[in-house]
């Protein structure tokens, strides 16, 4: 059951906290540019109320990214984050997320998963 006051939504994503993990889900057809990246990071940080969490990030709604967006997420997107598990299911989102991990070099431990269960196992270590 998701408590109402632990749920947030903006134009690009939804997020909520359960069992010490922040669940983050991008909306369909999202393109990550700098503006979008700034928006989601800012809102997420406010939502977390100065507490740090491991993040399960469902990026299946992302269709494209640009460099400024990726770089912003890798740097500022790691603030108040203990670790990140990215959920993908398509070849294209896999290549984008791999590129993000390898090249944009996020500042916190980040791994890519196709199944939410595996991702949760990974993140539980950081709770």
């Amino acid at each position, binding site marked *: 059951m998701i408590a109402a006051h632990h749920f947030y939504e903006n134009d690009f994503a939804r997020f909520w906290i359960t069992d010490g993990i922040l669940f983050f889900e991008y909306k369909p057809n999202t393109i990550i540019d700098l503006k979008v990246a700034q928006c989601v990071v800012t809102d997420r940080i406010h939502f977390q109320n100065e507490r740090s969490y491991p993040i399960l990030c469902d990026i299946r709604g992302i*269709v*494209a990214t*640009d*460099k400024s967006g990726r770089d912003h997420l890798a740097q500022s997107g790691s603030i108040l984050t203990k670790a990140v598990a990215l959920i993908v299911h398509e*070849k*294209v989102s*896999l*290549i*984008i997320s791999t590129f993000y991990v390898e*090249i944009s070099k996020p500042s916190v431990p980040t791994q890519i998963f196709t199944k939410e269960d595996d991702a949760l196992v990974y993140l539980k270590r950081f709770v």
Partner: protein
Amino acid sequence: MKKAYNEERIVTMHQMLFEMARGNFNSRIPLSSNDEELETLVVLINMVAEEMKESIFNVGYVNAHRKLQFIAQSTLVLDASFSIKSFTAEIAYFLGYSESELIDLPLAGIITTVSLQQLHDVLDANVSLPTTIALDFTPNEHLPVSVSCTIGRLVNSSEIILNLVTPARKDSYRPLMYENENEKYLKTRKADALLIQKLYDYILAHLEEPLPSLKVLSSEFGTNEHKLKDGFRHFFKTSIYQFYNDERLKRAYFMIEHTTIPLKNISVMNGFNDYPNFSKSFKKRFGFSPYEIKRNETGSTSILED
């Protein structure tokens, strides 16, 4: 149906890669909504181009089409106390100092402390000379450059000779400490790079003609004389005319060495209107006259009669 589509995709990928090889990182392959292996390549290539555009080309690198821009065999002559007594002129350019600044300068002023010590160690160990050692030079306002040098002694002299091949500097990196001061400057340079690249390519493609005046060139390239002159010097550390002259002389040298075309014809083919002018320029640049070069007698190029 699908095969044709894939082939089209591959063609656009080839085009994109060729553009990148030319130094153009601004193009992008249009995305499609397919999720196939090919699409992952398209997405990946686009992302790589984005990265390279910002990272490598941030300070206005221009593609000189060659890996080594020029190779010059350079020499430094040091006295017994390792002060610079003399050198071939291009070393001054390589090190970013004037000739007068280099004369009598201790070697310690142009190489790192570690390198100086290594040099001393080699000479103290009485290793048979000439011997080769990699020395880290510290050019003025540029990153240290490691250059392989041959140390030798001249017969009947206490002088030490350092022979090296001076690498051409592309200035594709600037130390972080310059970043804030020059940021505005750098951003303009990035826009200029494409223009200067075009000019550079134009000159290389027209070495057989006289170089148009700066006024004509700036009109051709849609900019002002100052921007063209200044921009070219920024990227290539030489004036437009000097570059043009140098390149045509180098091309003439190559032709003299590798063909049996009469010298007079070679001079005309490289944009020189009269032979004495060519000969004089040639001797000034290379230190000897065109006719002194050993020519390739067995070359397969046909002889062009005047």
